[in-house]
């Protein structure tokens, strides 16, 4: 093999290949508007990587936490914008963030619809636990909540999913506004 073929690539690219999809999913949940998720992730990632990237490895929890903090900051300024823009975010389903080949699997689609119905605070805990693979301790620090709170939210979320998936498969979901508590 020629030395030219030795593919030395910036370490951030291999890091981002491992964590990018999960981070983007979380950013989509945290952002008010769908088109803002990438901006949010870019801002958080660049800030953290400039601080710690020289070490060669960055704890993903730091980037999740940065995403959440920046989303809160941005939300405060967005509140001054038109309500119509927020409506767009509410209408964007989470299923667009997952592999489209799932469309042929009825149960997985029902599962995603059920996840969509979860309250936001339970959905973010579920996302960080299942797809970001953070520990409860890391999730608690990311969300600035207690360990017990995040563990409870996770358990409530799973319980709701267990109840709702059969309903979704039968095509009779309850009104999400009445169940999301």
């Amino acid at each position, binding site marked *: 093999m020629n030395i030219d073929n*030795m593919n*030395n690539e910036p370490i951030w690219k291999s890091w*981002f290949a491992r964590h990018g999809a999960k981070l983007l999913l979380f950013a989509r949940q945290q952002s008010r508007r769908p088109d803002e998720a*990438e901006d949010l992730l870019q801002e958080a990632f660049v800030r953290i990587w400039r601080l710690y990237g020289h070490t060669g490895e960055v704890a993903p929890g730091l980037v999740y936490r940065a995403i959440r903090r920046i989303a809160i900051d941005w939300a405060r300024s967005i509140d001054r914008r038109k309500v119509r823009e927020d409506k767009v975010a509410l209408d964007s389903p989470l299923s667009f963030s997952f592999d489209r080949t799932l469309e042929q699997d009825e149960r997985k689609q029902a599962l995603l619809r059920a996840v969509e119905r979860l309250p936001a605070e339970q959905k973010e805990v*579920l996302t960080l636990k299942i797809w970001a693979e953070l520990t409860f301790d890391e999730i608690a620090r990311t969300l600035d909540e207690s360990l017990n709170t995040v563990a409870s939210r996770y358990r409530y979320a799973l319980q709701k999913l267990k109840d709702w998936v059969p309903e979704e498969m039968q095509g009779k979901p309850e009104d999400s506004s009445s169940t999301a508590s």
Partner: protein
Amino acid sequence: MNEFEKLEAELKELRPLPPSDAFTARLQEALGDAGNVAMRCLPDQEDDASPDDFIKSTEKKGFSSRLLIFAGLGSLGLAAVWAAIFYLSSSLVPNGSSEQNDSANLLIAESGPVPEAPGAGLREDPDSPLHGISLKELQDVSVMPVSGWIDPQINERFLRRVDEGVFDRPGGLPATLLWTRPSGVIRHLICASSRPHHGKK
């Protein structure tokens, strides 16, 4: 067995979509030089390397190890020089002449309860108006605040003020005032003045 294990396994089977190439390119542009600070060769590509590549990489490693050795020797040399300077300075300072020690002792005896000679370490405090005396030391011996020059209202509490004239100090403005505490034996220099020189009385 956890009742939710099956559900968790199903959820984990759902894979979030990876970021687009366009977004990755955007990130690269946004990172700029920070993205290139840490580099590494991916492990799977190292495994595929031919013997020629291995030799070349070994040569590179040899070069970097030599660099490390030079850097280590340089650091050791610097440390040795620092240690020598520190040793010399610490061993020379206490060995002043006996005359100097005697005069210092005499000064301390005259000064009464002053804990140490203010300029003993000659530490410079940029906020202090006095050479070799920190603001804190000044406060301790003068019983006055260090947060600035004395409020004229506070001056009224002192019983006696003696102006001993202007004298020059090394590296600072000339000082003008010496205060005498009512209790008697200690004289303290507390401030430098921008007043015009009056000459010694």
